[in-house]
């Protein structure tokens, strides 16, 4: 565990030593801020219309503002997570530092986990930026905090799944651009995998729907922790990390 922490710490440090962390977090803050303002304007307009209509139903800030905002936010992650993971292994292979890691008295799994938690920590910092925006909502309104908490849990799992796949792809190549592009393509496919399911009949439809990344996130954002979704994300993460460990191992054999 100490080795995992050492490697995760080094990973996180190197994100912040290079411009990557600042660029990724900075642009995330910019885009998310824009979305926030957009959704908030829409929400305020809706509220005013409702008020003028004089209807009894009230707007739910969790349902009508936080939820669409968070679902939109995942699109930004789709673009940014490949930037976080693409260098993890590629860079070590290119510069030869992988030789240091693989000849140290640590297991492949510890290296994989260290890199995973390092990338996840940067992702968490990115998520933490949004605390500012939601903090403002709590200041001026009365959203429920419990669904927001489960939403963050869901987003963490969602990001962790992406990171585990990104790590695996990075472990396959020395070239960062190749790793980044391939990661982005795979993420996008996992995003839209449920588009074509329906044309192959109900069984395939449900399979494809199950594979889709975002479908499992919605319940978390609504405030529901369903084991079905937990199992999906956790098995996804474990599978990704397992593939990465295997890939590092076969790399040794191939030389």
């Amino acid at each position, binding site marked *: 565990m100490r080795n995992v922490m050492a490697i995760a*710490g080094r990973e996180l*440090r*190197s994100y912040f030593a*290079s411009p990557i962390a600042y660029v990724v977090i900075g642009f995330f803050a910019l885009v998310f801020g824009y979305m926030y303002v957009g959704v908030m304007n829409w929400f305020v307009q809706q509220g005013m219309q409702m008020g003028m209509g004089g209807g009894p139903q009230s707007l739910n800030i969790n349902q009508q503002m936080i939820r669409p905002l968070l679902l939109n936010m995942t699109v930004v992650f789709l673009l940014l997570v490949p930037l976080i993971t693409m260098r993890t292994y590629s860079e070590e292979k290119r*510069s030869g530092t992988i030789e*240091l890691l693989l000849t140290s*008295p640590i297991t492949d799994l510890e290296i994989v986990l260290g890199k995973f938690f390092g990338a996840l920590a940067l992702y968490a910092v990115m998520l933490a930026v949004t605390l500012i925006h939601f903090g403002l909502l709590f200041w001026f309104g009365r959203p429920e905090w419990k669904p927001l908490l489960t939403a963050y849990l869901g987003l963490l799992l969602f990001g962790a799944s992406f990171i585990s796949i990104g790590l695996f792809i990075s472990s396959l190549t020395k070239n960062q651009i190749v790793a980044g592009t391939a990661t982005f393509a795979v993420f996008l496919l996992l995003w839209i995998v449920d588009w074509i399911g329906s044309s192959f009949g109900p069984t395939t439809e449900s399979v494809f729907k199950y594979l889709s990344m975002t479908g499992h996130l919605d319940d978390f954002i609504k405030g529901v922790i369903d084991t079905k979704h937990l199992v999906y994300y956790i098995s996804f993460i474990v599978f990704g990390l397992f593939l990465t460990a295997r890939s590092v191992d076969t790399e040794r054999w191939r030389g």
Partner: protein
Amino acid sequence: MIEVQHLTKRYGAFTAVNDVSFKVERGEILGFLGPNGAGKTTTMRVLTGFIPATSGHAVVAGHDVFEQPLEAKRRTGYLPETPPLYPDMTVGEYLSFVSKIKGVPPKERKARIDQVMRKTYVADMVNRACGKLSKGYRQRVGLAQALIHNPDVLILDEPTAGLDPKQIIETRRLVKELAGDHTIVLSTHILPEVAQTCQRVVIINKGKVVAVDTPANLTGRLRGSEALHVQVDGDPVQVTAALQRVPGVVRVNAAESHDHAGSYEVDSEAGRDVRRDLARAIVGSGFGLLELRPVRMSLEEVFLSLTTEEQPLEEAHA
């Protein structure tokens, strides 16, 4: 300390290391000599557990590198051909990170880091980013990294490559200083380096070990017989005849002669020292013995003769 038995490494159809066996005793410096692409780096990578061998065994500090990789790695320090530095870390941060993953206990880390920085003369660069170091410093930080957990075995892949002459001398001295506490395997394709630093040499070519010996023995032995260089004052024909009569002499070649003094190359049976008989025969026959010395090949010649395959003439012309 290190025992390698029948080590073979294949990449697909290509055999990088072919049935290599050798042993290194505790405290010894073993030189790994061979042309580029001979399999030096591959052998070292197998020893350090970076890549597995296709077949064969390697035991480092009492632990098989395939069966107990973590135990073996804990006792091995490794400097790869390019020092594995993270450019964005300072030297201090880097060594601190390496000390963690090499399993140095937290309490000893600071002392160990200070110690290796002093040993490798990098203490003045502690706050410099690794990416901004000169080649010589990179190499030394790489060496510091390999020493940090005080390993029994040090494996250095071309530790002097790319350094300037002064740095080369310093590095060699450093390696020699380290030899007492550590068992060292170093690879190089520079011959004088081996003669100066190593107690024993493994010459490897095309993945095969072609010779294992001390540098002195290698330069001495490599002709099937012992060769002597003799300079004698006297008629060449008579001298040649006299030399050939000495028991144990296989062949006499008149090399050159000016005026009365002639030079001869005398080959004798392997392992038989004919110098005394030779001297007696020359003086007894009334010739003047001007010079008598053993002929040794330089390490360069040894190396070339071992690693160059002479092609038959017909093929060479074809």
